[in-house]
């Protein structure tokens, strides 16, 4: 799952290295429009619909946070 997340993130913002252990939001690697595109990609890749109330910046701050978000929303 982590590798799929990194692949999607890299496709969205190829200029950044998402393997780093840093906060993607605080470092300006993802803005709110990136999150819209990211959620759309994650939804279709994992066959889920991430709950709208979970679409807050902190849930997209790291690969681990995104993984937890996916698991919470039923991704296998």
């Amino acid at each position: 799952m982590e590798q799929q997340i990194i692949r999607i993130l890299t496709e969205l913002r190829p200029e950044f290295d998402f393997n780093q252990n840093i906060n993607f939001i605080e470092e300006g690697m993802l803005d709110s429009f990136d999150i819209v595109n990211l959620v759309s990609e994650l939804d279709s890749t994992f066959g889920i619909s991430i709950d709208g109330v979970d679409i807050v910046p902190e849930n997209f701050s790291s690969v681990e946070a995104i993984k937890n978000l996916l698991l919470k929303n039923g991704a296998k």
Partner: protein
Amino acid sequence: MDFTFRNKKITGILTVLPHKVVTFEEEMGNYSFSAAKSMKLKLAMGYKEHRIAQPGQCSSDFCIYGMQYLFDNGLLDKDGIDALLFVSQSPDYYMPPTSNIIQGHFGMKHDMLCMDINQGCAGFEIGLIEAFLLLEQPAINRVVLLNADVLSPKVSDRDRNSKPLIGDAASVTIIEKSDDASVIHANVRMDGTGAFALNIPAGGFRLPSSAETAVMEEDAAGNFRSKDNLVMQGDNVFNFVQREVPPMIEHLLEQAGVLKDEVDWYMFHQPNKFMLHKLADKIGIPYEKMPANIVENFGNASGVTVPTNISYNLGDTVVDGIRKVCLAGFGVGLTWSSILMDLGNMKFNKIIEF
């Protein structure tokens, strides 16, 4: 706050759209998105094209054009209007009320009520509830509800939160007493602690427009706006909608004793496609029952998106037949409201261009 009404119906909806079409491609250069990001957002958010008023056109001009069309085509009797409601955030003047200006333009009877209501995204539902309340009075048999907004001049060209989605439009809705005893269920919620999630900082009495308020400033997300421009705190609005609207709809259906599947159409306000699809998923409604194509074809004209949605997507199906619809609006105020009612046997339901 919950409401129930009987013996009232919508007998006609006319949506009036500007003829000028502006495409996302024409504006993409203002937003500093990469081409790939733009294309993805186009699909997810519904960035395609929007309708924009010509310079100098005001909300009342669209209303007057629409009402004149109805008079000319024998669809509305000028002397049979007992109340004229104008719901907008873009009135012609601070004073007088725009509804009075429209009444005066047509030389309508004096024995009637004109009222301006400052509401936006939930303005169709708020206006309908006000119309239903007025129709409880013996003296009022027909209400004309005007929803109109020409807010595009207030949105910065370099505001990628709002500019790609803004639209200008008006609608004329006729609401009358009826023999139909079917119950209309409605509710309204307000939270003024979030009043500035959507706002125009300058131009009122608190902060009059000046050379200083016209200075463009860059926000943390790279948008450029002045204090004379509309500001939308997109993240806050999105979270508010996702948190508050699903329970409101559940409550409405529960109050009415109606199952989700028994509703033919969910005609919601359309801020953007992504937000609507997330709402549909959360509430458990198939996308086919919740059209999300208004913002991509015409833009978000605040309270006019729901009547536009009805005119564009339901058309003659509510002239020739009857459909159970759930209407919902949510946004500026913060205000959120929903209505469950039958729409049918209407005299007209269409779109014209001005």
